[in-house]
């Protein structure tokens, strides 16, 4: 019989996440409150974060250090950068694969 190991979801509490990110937990909590990074909270109110958010935090730090942005502007800049990245990816796909209408394309 095939058996499967129980997989524990990889999640970090606020302190562990803050340690990995090199930040004070209050700053991380602040990021979550401002919607700059995603976190989930359980019924007891404990915040849980995933390691995948660490690069996002690093980007927030870099942008803040580079441009001296306040937190509201930081959220806007991050959203716009993500949107530009998505649009550029879509544009790349379009440029290389002409939309097929099913009709023969004569040269």
């Amino acid at each position, binding site marked *: 019989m095939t058996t499967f190991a129980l997989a524990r979801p990889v999640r970090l509490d606020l302190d562990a996440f803050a340690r990995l990110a*090199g*930040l*004070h937990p*209050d*700053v991380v*909590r*602040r990021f979550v409150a401002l919607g700059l990074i995603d976190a989930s909270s359980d019924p007891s109110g404990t915040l849980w974060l995933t390691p995948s958010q*660490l*690069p996002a935090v*690093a*980007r927030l*730090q*870099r*942008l*803040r*250090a*580079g*441009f*001296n942005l*306040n*937190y509201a502007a930081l959220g806007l800049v991050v959203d716009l*950068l993500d949107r530009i990245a998505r649009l550029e*990816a879509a544009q*790349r*796909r379009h440029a*290389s*694969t*002409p939309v*097929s209408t099913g*009709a*023969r394309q004569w040269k």
Partner: protein
Amino acid sequence: MARRDFYEVLGVGRDASADDIQSAYRKLARTYHPDVNKDPAAEDRFKEVSEAYDVLSDPELRRRYDAFGHDFRQVPDGVDPQQWARARAGAGQSRAGRAGSARTREPDNDWFSSAGFTGTGGIDFEELFGDLRGGRGRSWGPIPGADQEAELTLSIEEAFRGGRRSITLSGPDGSRNYDVTIPPGVTDGQRIRLAGQGGQGTGQAPPGDLYLVVRLAPHPRYRVEDRDLYVELQLSPWEAALGATVAVDTPGGEAKLRVPAGTSSGRRLRLKHRGLPNTRGAPGDLYAEVRIMVPATPSDDERRLFEELARVSTFDPRRQR
């Protein structure tokens, strides 16, 4: 290592005002910030620009830079520039100027606790960061490096076969070489991740990743849509009318294709799983698009037979149905 003049880096003259310097820096920072510009060369440029601004934006450091050039951090206070120029070697190593590079500054993550702030209640962090922590807020602890992107152009044959490919990325610090394994069936826009080869982190923080974004070069014969390939299949009128078995070139080698009788131009004939391979599922298909060709200058016999066909046939492709 030859270092560029800080004024040259910012593109301003030596007599530039503080406002000019700040304006030049802001423009360059917006262009080359590693989170805005994914080009691997941008990060080095951003570092260079930041270092130049660090020095030139501080009146005291700027004065010392003007007097002593790049060595100004090794010069003790109160030294005459001309005297220094005569005896450059070895002077003042133990007394670096008051502003050790921003990069060597001690990480100060403990700042919050040492300043007595343990909670967020009633404290506006933006005010704290923005006003108290200095002009550009460069006093965070170690920050991991940014991810970078570079384009990798592949021919359709290379994407089909996969394999190893040597890649050279040029930068101001010389070129970097990578030996990259390309998975068979990589498609346009897919990213190949080179872990840890992206932008440098500060302090002990890890570097980012380098992503090679695949671009498929236009091919004279094949057109690609996702994993499906399209190729033109030229047929003579009698092959199209009577049916035939013809050879079609595919990236994986020649394939035999049966053309059913009564095939007109524009019909697509599918060769299943002859498109780009897929490591995680079914490969794409190859579609041969029929195009009927006629001889530009028919021989006498051909002309006679076509005329006879025209006389005998009742087929009218333009008849309204």
